[in-house]
């Protein structure tokens, strides 16, 4: 099977205010096209795990493989490049750059990657917006659209560089049930049609039940 992401013996400690063992020997794999959710109570370490997997947090023990390559211990610049190219992000809050238009927000990671011409990037960005049925918003400013729309723009931005995996930290946590359904359906569709892997941290049990696989965490360990 094609493994996209693999974690081996991940341990993490918080040193302040007192030494605290947050993650205890985490091992798991995510295959290509797999739609995985992580569930657990607040404080069980699921978000902490996600930020380690996302390469933004480098202060941990253990080994992390992306597309079967070891990325633990890479330089910060290298990790930035990996995030840019291989990982897409969707957060609970929408985190668009308010001064830029929707289209510019979506194009930004591709421009940073700099592998394609401006015209290609613009074309791709419009295509992603069309998949998510929000192409009519392209010219609007990011600060002028609704919450549900913002989350879909954020998903389009996560998709722009055709990453290996998309990670989400409660991407539906801030949305009503209608928009929440909407986002779930988009994920599901992308997972099936484009064989994309998803790793979503969520509190929402309905959301989690509909995914391919649920990882449940408790007190820093994976229990199922």
């Amino acid at each position, binding site marked *: 099977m094609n493994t996209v992401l693999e974690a081996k013996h991940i341990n993490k400690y918080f040193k302040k205010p007192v030494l605290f063992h947050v993650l205890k020997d985490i091992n798991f794999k995510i295959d290509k096209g797999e739609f995985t959710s992580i569930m657990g109570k607040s404080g069980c370490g699921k978000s902490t795990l996600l930020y380690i997997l996302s390469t*933004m947090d480098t202060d941990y023990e253990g080994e992390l493989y992306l597309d079967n390559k070891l990325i633990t211990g890479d330089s*910060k610049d290298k990790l*930035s490049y990996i995030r840019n190219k291989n990982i897409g992000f969707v*957060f609970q809050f929408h985190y*668009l750059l308010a*001064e830029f238009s929707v289209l510019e927000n979506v194009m930004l990671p591709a421009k*940073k990657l700099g592998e394609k011409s401006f015209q290609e990037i613009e074309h791709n960005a419009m295509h992603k917006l069309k998949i998510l049925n929000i192409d009519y918003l392209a010219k609007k400013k990011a600060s002028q659209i609704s919450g549900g729309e913002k989350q879909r723009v954020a998903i389009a931005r996560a998709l722009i560089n055709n990453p290996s995996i998309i990670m989400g930290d409660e991407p539906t946590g801030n949305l009503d049930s209608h928009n929440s359904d909407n986002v779930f359906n988009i994920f599901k569709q992308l997972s099936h049609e484009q064989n994309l892997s998803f790793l979503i941290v969520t509190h929402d049990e309905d959301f989690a039940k509909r995914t391919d696989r649920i990882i449940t965490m408790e007190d820093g360990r994976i229990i199922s």
Partner: protein
Amino acid sequence: MVNWKVLLNIAKKHLLTKFKQTAVAALGVTFGITSYITLASFMTGLNNVLDDLILNQTPHIHIYNEIEPSKQQPISLYDDFKNSFNVVHSIKPKLNQKKIHNALPIIKYLNDNKDVKGAISQIKTNIFYISGSIELVGNLTGINPIEEARLFNFKDYVIEGSPKDLKNTENSIIIGSGVAKKMSLSIGERVQISTVNGTVFPLKIVGIYQSGVSDIDAIQSFTNIKTVQTILGEAKNYITDINVKLYDIDRALPLAKKIEQQFNLNAVDINTANAQFETGSSIRNLITYVVSFTLLVVAGFGIYNILNMLIYEKMNDIAILKAIGFSGKDVQIIFMSEALIIGIVGGVLGLLFGLLFTNIINTIPYETEGLPRIKTYPIDFNLWYYVIGLTFAIISTCFAGFLPSQKAKKIDPVKIIRGQ
């Protein structure tokens, strides 16, 4: 692999959306640079005028014969008293000729030296101006008017008439403004002068001279070398002083020493004669730079403040940029380029305003008797002030931008995103 276009585009967006703060920060720099340009140009202009007042008409090297006692009294040449202790009372100065021996060959020799811009001869003599029964003491200097105008800006100090008239008119004189005022004389009239020997000579006034130093103007007059030689009854090779102008003023001291040795004459260089002027100029320059530097430091703090505020406001943006693959260095470049854009725009505006203000000051009338050739406030237009001003603007904004951008570089995106 820094993608400048993308980063600069983000910097531009930040600055334009916060246009008011950006403008205030840039205006701080503009204010500093404008003051620097105006101050430096004005102060240096004024300095130059003050220096010119004395230095311009002073030769770089002045060669003459000093009247002094012989260093070796006759008794020391007499062998019989060689081993005894001699006391000589009432030593008189040696009767020496005032004239410089072989003056014309010396001038020719000096003019052949490649450091020398020109060496010209003068004859200095004491005279009396005669007005009825009143005799006024004065100095008459025989000059070559055209050369004097070329090398020592003589023309600037002739406030009526011109050096050319002196050259072209037989038995003519340019008298000091103080003399003219005391004796109620004006151009075209005649003045009687008498030599120390009592010979009286009528001369036609073709110009009025004003140096700005009233003690000099009350006694000094000028005429042709030939006229003085006639008045004194001396030959054509009678010359008492040689004035030398150099291309580089710093060569004055060594050359003066060399002339003294070679020709057995007195030679005084300009720095020895006018040491106090150097000190005055350098202190005024120092003040200019201290004031400008202070203004720019204040402007730098303005930029520092605004960038700091911007970074607090953009904390979320910085986190998201890092999350989608911008490195810490990229983020630092964004904020550094914002500081630099503020510095360059503010600096260039400052240069333009500086140019404008100095031009305005340059047209404000300023007339004073002490400085006859000054009609408006003096300004020194010098490209270097503009180069220094812009460089300083860029360097100070670099410093001001560095700390905030360093902070932005180190922001941990996880903390920001999870902290919501």
